């Protein structure tokens, strides 16, 4: 059952093999650290594996490359560098003596590393409305997984709540897979995601109802329809404006929450900063948490994009390495470049909330 010895002598243990975690492992290993990645999926790549859209940005950030191809590039690099990977393994607990409990199949064992970098990502937010627990009410990302990763036809007709980038991209991918999309509702008075995505889905004939929300799912054992209403300026439902939309899937795309349970357990300081995605682990600009042996990156640190998650991963990986072996020219170069690229991406007007959130994170340490 227990095989502690196999996993001793680890410099850096990376929890989560998505875009952020893979970059951590790659830079740290390139610098010479002994790295192990733990991931609960059979394959690496995290949520990139279901992303069929091409990335934006500059060439350095895989512009024009599809998400699942980025997953392959990073995974190939992990294999090339001979990085230890524990797949289909879930980190389930963080213990007093800084050991991590891992569950792989029926085996539970513990592992101790000198540094931990958590890149656990985020989970999709739920929304409550009448019958919101009916089968057929799915996270938009869940539908994307079923359809793009497993090739399952997710349903006949979808209805989407939320017009952020996920709420705009997933319905487009549904159309590509031959599934009908009835409508998208957005509670605010403007679309949340990028204009290009909104234009694409609207050109395909899918209406986006602004200042609308869902109040009820209809159906007995499975979703048959969604009831929506207009909302007023204080987000109150305007009675008499109800409209029933037939559908067999309701996709919830209202945002993500960082998966920071293990960090709570580890005793890391957690702050509530809505601009960064809710409860997030406190971290400095070097991605170090309130505990000097624990670093974070990616959606866990701040709900953002895969491109920024990869840059944060580089910073976290280098800084975890430097905390063990000191700074050198190469490590310094990687961090300087990653920080510069991050600040360029975050200078866009779309990313203002992130800068605001980081300011709050910084001041929170003195306020508490």
């Amino acid at each position, binding site marked *: 059952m227990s095989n502690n010895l196999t996993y001793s002598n680890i410099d850096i243990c990376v929890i989560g093999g998505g875009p952020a975690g893979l970059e951590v492992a790659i830079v740290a290993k390139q610098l010479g650290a002994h790295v192990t990645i733990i991931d*609960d*999926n059979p394959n690496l790549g995290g949520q990139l594996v279901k992303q069929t859209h091409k990335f934006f940005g500059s060439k350095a950030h895989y512009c024009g490359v599809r998400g699942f191809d980025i997953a392959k590039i990073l995974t190939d690099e992990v294999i090339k560098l001979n990085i230890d990977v524990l797949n289909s393994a879930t980190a389930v607990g963080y213990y007093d003596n800084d050991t991590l409990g891992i569950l792989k199949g029926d085996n539970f064992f513990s592992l101790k590393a000198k540094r931990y970098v958590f890149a656990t990502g985020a*989970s999709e937010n739920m929304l409550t409305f009448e019958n919101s627990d009916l*089968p057929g009410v799915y996270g938009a990302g869940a539908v994307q997984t*079923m359809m793009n990763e497993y*090739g399952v036809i997710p349903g006949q007709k979808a209805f989407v709540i939320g017009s952020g980038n996920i709420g705009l991209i997933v319905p487009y991918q549904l159309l590509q897979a031959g599934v009908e999309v009835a409508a998208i509702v957005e509670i605010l008075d403007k679309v949340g995601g990028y204009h290009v995505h909104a234009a694409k889905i609207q050109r395909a004939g899918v209406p986006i109802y602004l200042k609308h929300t869902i109040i009820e799912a209809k159906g007995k*054992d*499975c979703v048959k329809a969604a009831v929506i209403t207009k909302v007023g300026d204080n987000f109150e439902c305007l009675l008499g404006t109800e409209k029933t939309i037939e559908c067999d899937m309701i996709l919830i795309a209202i945002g993500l929450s960082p998966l920071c349970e293990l960090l709570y357990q580890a005793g890391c300081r957690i702050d509530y900063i809505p601009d960064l995605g809710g409860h997030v682990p406190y971290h400095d600009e070097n991605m170090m948490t309130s505990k000097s042996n624990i670093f974070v990156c990616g959606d866990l640190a701040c709900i953002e994009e895969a491109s920024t998650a990869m840059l944060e991963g580089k910073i976290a990986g280098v800084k975890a390495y430097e905390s063990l072996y000191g700074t050198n020219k190469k490590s310094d170069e990687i961090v300087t470049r990653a920080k510069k690229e991050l600040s360029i991406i975050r200078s866009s007007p779309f990313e203002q909330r992130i800068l605001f959130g980081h300011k709050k994170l910084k001041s929170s340490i003195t306020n508490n």
Partner: protein
Amino acid sequence: MDGYLTEHPILEFKRGKRVRFYFEDREIEGFEGQPIAAALHAAGIRVLKYSDKYDRPRGFFCAVGKCSSCLMEVDGRPNVMVCMEPLKEGMKVRRQKGRGRL
């Protein structure tokens, strides 16, 4: 096997070998190694369990092993997260009622 995408403008799907398994007492076909939830969804099965308190039907929600909405009884074992558990030949999958008994 009607529930699967066959043509896609971007993706090609690599699937495992065809296997037979049981849902309740019904024999169903699926692909080895795919999550049980994917095989069930493709077969048109949306209700995966019934809730603890009010016996309400539940399906998957996150499909990536985070939310515990898809816990089923697999080969007699309760609380198996079927969105993550790989399908094997001959598996006996049942809807779980409530918390499941050990």
